[in-house]
């Protein structure tokens, strides 16, 4: 016999739905609580882990990167504050601070030759040479982090790109767009002439002249007047990397 669906049946269904939904919420709530518990445990484990592997973290840049990413995944940024417990645990606060000081040292020492523009690779090589043998290896990522930590110093330290070349700029003034354009033109040859710029961008002579004068004034380029009619302008920051040269001692 078929049971008719009456008002009572509908009410019962509604009650079931409510009960299920309540149960669902309870379950979800419990899941979240569980998850939070897990995260707390994970954080604690991570702390233990970091404490235990502090030496490896300092010595192995790949491992350091992985730990950093792990920290970020569970919402801990060890670099957010120098007082952060993770920074202290990781010893990374000191590490990047020390690296930042070395970066400043190199940028200042080479500024009179390169006008405050140094290729990232070149900087990395110099950092590696400068550091005591057996101290932590440096990778590009470390340099980027260290430079981002220098921001509050307002020294203008930042990473800029000209074409495919990644450079570290250490002068506070903004690079004029014309200068950047011309530098990108010179990225492979390390040099350019007035004619190269004229042909490349169809600028008038005044614009080219003032762009070159500006870069000469700031020491970003050097002039080579071997050809007195068509002098060449060289970018020491590019040359340094191209020849593996170590301009300046």
């Amino acid at each position, binding site marked *: 016999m078929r049971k008719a669906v009456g008002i009572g049946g509908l009410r019962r269904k509604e009650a079931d739905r409510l009960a299920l939904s309540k149960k669902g919420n309870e379950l979800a709530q419990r899941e979240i609580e569980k998850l939070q518990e897990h995260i707390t445990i994970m954080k604690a484990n991570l702390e233990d882990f970091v404490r235990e592997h502090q030496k490896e973290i300092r010595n192995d840049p790949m491992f350091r990167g992985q730990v950093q990413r792990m920290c970020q995944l569970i919402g801990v940024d060890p670099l957010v504050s120098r007082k952060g417990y993770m920074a202290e645990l990781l010893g990374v606060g000191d590490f990047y601070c020390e690296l930042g000081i070395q970066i400043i040292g190199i940028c200042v020492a080479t500024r009179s030759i390169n006008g405050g523009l140094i290729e990232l690779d070149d900087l990395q090589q110099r950092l590696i040479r400068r550091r005591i043998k057996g101290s932590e290896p440096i990778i590009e990522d470390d340099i980027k982090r260290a430079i981002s930590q220098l921001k509050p110093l307002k020294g203008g330290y930042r990473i800029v790109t000209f074409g495919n070349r990644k450079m570290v700029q250490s002068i506070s003034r903004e690079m004029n767009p014309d200068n950047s354009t011309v530098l990108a033109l010179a990225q492979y040859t390390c040099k350019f002439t007035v004619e190269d710029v004229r042909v490349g961008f169809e600028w008038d002579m005044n614009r080219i002249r003032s762009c070159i004068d500006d870069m000469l004034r700031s020491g970003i380029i050097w002039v080579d007047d*071997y050809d007195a009619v068509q002098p060449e302008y060289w970018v020491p920051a590019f040359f340094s990397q191209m*020849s593996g040269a170590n301009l300046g001692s």
Partner: protein
Amino acid sequence: MTTTAASMDTEFQFPEIYNFPPFFTRQPNDSTWKEQRRMWCDLILSYYKYNNLSSMTLAEAVSDPLFNNKQIHRSLRVDTLREVVEELVKQGNACWTGPKNTRDACLIFWRKPEAWASIIHQWASENGMFNMVFTFFELANGDDTVEQEFHGLDPLTLRRALDVLQGQGKAQLFVGTSDEDIGVKFFHSS
């Protein structure tokens, strides 16, 4: 210079900046030029030390390997070199020689006369040579000094060094008939 292996390159090692073509052009930017000049000064002193050289005639020097990089076909101009030497003179690492105000020739002191003076005086002290008379020739070329760094030192630099000692009361010079005849007597510092 001593080498540890026969295969080792004993040629003077030029710094990398030597292969940077604009290094041979006087830079118009003042602070770049000061750095460039400093690097030229350092290069000259280490090159002169390495090759144990002392005198320089500017017009001839610019075709020497030091100022003429054949690989990149660049050479320093005489007037730029003159500015560099002017700086060395200011630092006490060079002095102009030859007719006054011509600034065409100079003596490079890769070690300052003051430093030579104390080396020579120390030698005299350690070897009990006080109150004895030496000729310049004996000092620079005699058997007693063969082992010394100042053996073979050019007469002008030696003269400068001994003048310093005389000024300090640690030596007395006796003028003879020729430069090589000049005699010198060392004293304990007075």
